């Protein structure tokens, strides 16, 4: 009797899994919208001249700037973002308005157009900016239109991905283990280093990979705040934008590189890492 009941349930589940057309059709259209642009890119790609185009000085310089700045932005995001995520998890005890404000500040770069972020950074760190002017006048330090500007712009846009991923991982850690560490004589710092960090490492890795991918693809904030000086601040995305106006085939070739990196990141992340935050 139990066997037949479960068989019935199995058949029911199979029937249930068949989606009604009203769901299936828009789902497939949505999928096409996401997939077909990449297909078009592959079709239009100048396969024959791909090698020389990608090995041109412009592209290699942009690649070097992109990788350097994205790596630095990821490191900076790790250094600042992991403590920020920790702060977010402890903000539960705060009064609701402060808690919401903190969360809004962390999340806003996710919904803000990056170009707006770039302009905001200019007014903060530009030569006449809020902090930029004293930096320039007192220390002679100018940030805009340098590699540092690229890194800061990318960090501004990409760090929230890391913070939210790490926050999810931190919340997943069994508080009992931290209690056990304290009972064994561990200071908060020792417990964090030896217990919490290893347990959140998968979440941190996932966050860092997402952050790196986002930093590598950053365009709006970078072009506004750092410009497109070849070899210094021109990244792959900004070089695509410039090439699109003068040499569309090269634009397609560079786009292919960025597409390949994106796919590689997703393969690297796998399901387990992508769902860490939601656990």
């Amino acid at each position, binding site marked *: 009797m139990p066997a037949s009941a479960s068989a019935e349930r199995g058949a029911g589940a199979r029937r249930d899994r068949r989606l009604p057309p009203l769901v299936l059709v828009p789902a497939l259209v949505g999928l096409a919208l996401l997939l077909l642009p990449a297909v078009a890119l592959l079709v239009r790609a100048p396969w024959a001249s791909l090698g020389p185009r990608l090995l041109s000085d412009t592209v290699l310089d942009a690649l070097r700037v992109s990788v350097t700045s994205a790596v630095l932005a990821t490191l900076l995001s790790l250094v600042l973002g992991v403590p920020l995520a920790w702060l977010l998890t402890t903000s539960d005890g705060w009064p609701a308005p402060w808690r919401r404000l903190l969360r809004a500040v962390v999340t806003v770069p996710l919904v803000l157009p990056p170009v707006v972020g770039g302009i905001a950074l200019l007014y903060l760190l530009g030569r006449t900016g809020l902090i930029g002017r004293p930096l320039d006048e007192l220390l002679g330090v100018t940030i805009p239109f340098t590699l540092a500007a690229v890194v800061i712009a990318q960090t501004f846009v990409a760090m929230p991905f890391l913070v939210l991923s790490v926050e999810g991982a931190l919340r997943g850690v*069994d508080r*009992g*283990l931290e*209690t*056990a*560490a*304290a*009972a*064994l*004589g*561990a*200071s908060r710092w*020792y*417990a964090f280093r*030896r*217990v919490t960090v*290893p*347990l959140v490492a998968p979440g941190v890795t996932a966050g860092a990979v997402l952050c790196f991918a986002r930093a590598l693809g950053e365009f709006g904030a970078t072009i506004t705040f750092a410009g497109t000086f070849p070899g210094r601040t021109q990244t792959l995305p900004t070089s695509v934008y410039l090439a699109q106006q003068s040499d569309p085939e090269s634009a397609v070739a560079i786009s292919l590189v960025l597409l390949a990196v994106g796919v590689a990141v997703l393969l690297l992340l796998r399901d387990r890492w992508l769902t860490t935050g939601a656990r």
Partner: protein
Amino acid sequence: MTAGGPGSAGSPGSGSAGSGPGGLAARLRVARGDFRLDLDLDVAPGEVVALLGPNGAGKSTVLGALAGLVPADGSDVVLDGQVLEGRVLGGRVLGATGPADATRASSAPRASVPARDRPVGTVFQDHRLFPHLTALENVAFGLRARGVPAAEARARAHVELERVGLGDLARRRPGELSGGQSQRVAVARALAPGPRLLLLDEPLAALDATARVELRAALAELLGAVAGPTVLVTHDPVDAVALAQRVVVVEHGRAVQQGRPAAVLLDPHSPYAASLTGATVWTPERVHLAAGGLEALLPGGGTVRSTRERATEGPSRVAFPAEAVTLRPPGHDPSGGAGPAPLPARVLRVEQRLSRLAVTVVTDAGGLTTTAEVPLEAVGAPSWRPGAAVVVQVDPSRVTLA
């Protein structure tokens, strides 16, 4: 209630056994919401005390307060002469030693040593081994956290693992250990830093039946070798008998009875303590002398007789073991009225025990419940169906009155 372990009697005025060298003296006062913990606990070095009580009685709060994991604002805890919790003046805890201190104590600064600085080892109910560390690294954790160099910590952890019989599993991670092995790693981890107080929260609860028996014996041996005081929490009287020299029955945040485990189980003072062995404890209206012994007047008007001496310790009670209870259908008295006074009752529920049926009845007058054991062959007999009317008789030679 400051009755302590060995040594308390011979040292008048100097406090109890626990406050001496190596011992634990705790006056725990914790209030959380509706719950209040008000419990004094003195444990001598080498002594194992079991806190026995129902869920929610406050047993785990006692351990938390001793370990510093639960705020224990109004408490005084002194371990091996060191004040872990309480008001301090000149390195001495106040309030605990006598009423003279009380006024000065109210103005003295309070000390509360944080959990990480207490020389206390805790074995958690769910073990809480660090999943990303090997058994050896888990055991070495407390030593490393206190600054012992890595090589020395590993060597000492290995000795500790050997002691619990797991030397060959040092490189396994908790996920690769059985429940019993993980429990032993947890004990080794708690003992490795050389704590002056060992706390165990339901140490055997997370294990299956066969592992429990095996580990209970192993744990008894380990605890026997611990030099400092040990406090363990359990709801299983078998653990208390096997592991502890003294049991403290905790109910509603208070100690209601304490003594040698066997003595507590044989002479329960409260319905909870009685339930551990299937015995019964009722609170009588009064106890008076009657022809041929003592007689207790029960709420509702029934009586129970005893041919024993009146008990001098504990609250007023009527206590008897399950074997003292006879159940029979009403209207049929084989003794012809010569037996103990019958109490009319109804069957409340019938539970299957290993070799007997446990029939719980509630008396018509006073609503008192008691449990009798009847032979297994009586399964399904109409006399023992829930709701059936029965007559309860209690053997006077096995009744304790106080």
